[in-house]
């Protein structure tokens, strides 16, 4: 049993993280599929509007509600899953609105939903995607009885954003500094006072030079209307943080073997460990396998022109495999005891159930990629 198959058998929540374009969504869907096949009812919650993924799972589209993956979708595999598999796609704006509708006092809802700050917060503010993904995870974990939830996270420009963003949004919603600056007005509940009545402080005046007086005023209005929700936001945030650190939660770091991705994943790995969050495995996706000696041997028997073409291709494949192997060795050295799991680059994009299944075989360690021997990878012109 490798680290991921163990995690699939024992964890309640798996969060797959990594930068954009590394195949997180595919890996997340595959993990949920394998868990369901092995008998744990699972949900994959994805962020990308991945229509292809929906189709692969036999769904017309993924929406903001959980949909059961029909048995017919898995049929081509010749396997009957022992538990049910669900999938959903997170709609950020809808989730924010639900949050407000559920937790804001009735007389404040409209005011919040139509506030300009709220609108940019819920749709455009960087970090709010990450925040709402975790909110949703917390809700699903507490209100549904899936044995495993796999959360596919938004692609972060920086690994750090994923862990920081929720705090950033939370700070925005419930912040001591703003209260300190704006206290008199907030306490009085008087909206519409000029900024100078607000705090009249030197700080507030200077900041308003920077942001404009009315911006501060509008922000104050927003905070005033959202204030009654602060306690529940705080409580939920505590819940989310606990959930991420819980023993039953694991992170799966997904990366591609390219040099430019590796620095980022190493950094993220360190950060998760510093935050006492468990990294179950680092998945290196789309690794180029090394063509074996038998292929070279076979190529020698071809007609000259054909042999040249084949050997040129084998040469290129070898170069790519060596590049990848060098990166992976570096990554392994940086990630200490965290298991590294390699998934090969398939000839075409992974977007049908058979390909998801094949991906799963590598994730579970049932199949391994042939990699270059260490001699090849350590040398080479630098």
């Amino acid at each position: 049993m490798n680290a991921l198959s163990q995690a699939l058998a024992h964890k309640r929540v798996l969060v797959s993280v990594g930068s954009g374009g590394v195949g997180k969504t595919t890996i997340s869907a595959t993990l949920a599929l394998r868990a369901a096949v092995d008998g744990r009812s699972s949900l994959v919650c994805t962020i990308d509007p991945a229509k292809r993924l929906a189709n692969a799972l036999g769904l017309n589209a993924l929406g903001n509600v959980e949909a059961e993956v029909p048995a017919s979708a898995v049929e081509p595999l010749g396997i009957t899953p022992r538990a049910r598999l669900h999938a959903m796609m997170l709609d950020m704006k809808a989730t924010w609105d639900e949050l407000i509708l559920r937790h804001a006092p009735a007389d404040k809802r409209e005011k919040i939903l139509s506030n300009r700050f709220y609108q940019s917060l819920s749709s455009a503010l960087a970090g709010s995607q990450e925040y709402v993904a975790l909110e949703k995870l917390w809700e699903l974990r507490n209100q549904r009885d899936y044995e495993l939830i796999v959360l596919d996270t938004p692609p972060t420009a920086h690994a750090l954003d994923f862990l920081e963003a929720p705090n950033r949004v939370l700070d925005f919603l419930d912040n001591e500094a703003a209260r300190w600056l704006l206290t008199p007005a907030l306490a009085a509940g008087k909206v519409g006072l000029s900024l100078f009545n607000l705090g009249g402080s030197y700080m507030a005046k200077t900041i308003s030079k920077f942001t404009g007086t009315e911006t501060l005023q509008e922000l104050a209005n927003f905070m005033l209307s959202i204030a009654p929700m602060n306690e529940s936001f705080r409580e939920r945030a505590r819940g989310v943080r606990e959930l991420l650190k819980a023993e039953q939660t694991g992170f799966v770091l997904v990366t591609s073997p390219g040099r430019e991705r590796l620095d980022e994943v190493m950094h993220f790995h360190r950060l998760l460990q510093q935050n006492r969050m468990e990294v179950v495995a680092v998945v290196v996706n789309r690794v180029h396998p090394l063509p074996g000696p038998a292929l070279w041997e076979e190529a020698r028997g071809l007609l000259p022109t054909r042999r040249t073409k084949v050997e040129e291709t084998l040469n290129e494949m070898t170069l790519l495999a060596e590049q990848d192997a060098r990166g992976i060795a570096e990554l392994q050295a940086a990630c200490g005891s965290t298991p590294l799991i390699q998934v090969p680059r398939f000839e075409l994009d992974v977007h049908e159930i058979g390909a998801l299944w094949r991906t799963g075989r590598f994730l579970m360690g049932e199949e391994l990629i042939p990699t270059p021997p260490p001699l090849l990878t350590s040398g080479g012109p630098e």
Partner: protein
Amino acid sequence: MAALLDKRLWIVSGKGGVGKSTIAAALALRSARAGRRTLVCEVNAQERISRMLGHEPVGPQITPLEENLWAVDVRPQEAMREYALMVLRFETLYKTVFENKVVRYFLRFIPSLQELVLLGKILFHAQEKRPDGKPLWDTIVMDAPATGHAITFLRVPQVLLQTVPPGPMSREALKMKDLLEDPAVTAAVLVSLPEELPVNETLELHTALRDQVRVRTHAAVLNATFPERFSEDDLEALVDQPELLQVARAHHARAAQTVLAQVKLERNLNVPVHRVPRIFTPNFDRSAIEQVMRHLESLVTGKEGP
């Protein structure tokens, strides 16, 4: 074919992992070679461009790399300081107010302020003038964030104009929006890969740039392409050697995908699509960037390559 050299602000974007920074580095190098004062800007990144070009990381200060080429990593804290100093004009005022811990904390909650100062700094450089009134920089290459983030990032001026009432922030945002929307100044170069998802994302990015940011796509770059190598005869001849056949087929399939991707991009974007072949070097270094650059000749100069 229109030359990219006719524009001053080159925005390079695309799906994550398609080689944006490589293309940005090659474009910047080519611009500098054309004798233009060129500034390449990374946005709060890991400074890959200066390293790709064989130089030390440059940090948040504009740093000369080589003849006609400067680089900077635009970072939030430094950009914020510059912006605040521009508005407040007094260093001491900045220090007492903006270096106050509570205030710093507070500034993080002004929606999109961080993005505003990052984008603002780049666009500020795009407006800088020499004593004779000519632009200080002939070319600014912006290695923009990947697709989804790029739209959020470039839309910051618009979002701010909708969110904040008139004031210093909105004045700044309006200036930025005008510059981005000016087709005489700004051009986007979209980088893609010959695979279905990156191609689709490129089309979405193009539409979003056009409709939501009003930035014009100048050209697309199809990166890491594979040339046709195996003919149908070759494939047939390998039929009894299944493993070799698989190797040939995989290559053949990738070459076919290159053609498909190019056609799809050309039809939907209505701009030239420039191919850059997959470069096979053990380390992706300066010489690789120079190779990439040679394939971008017609994109930059508007003339067909030699």
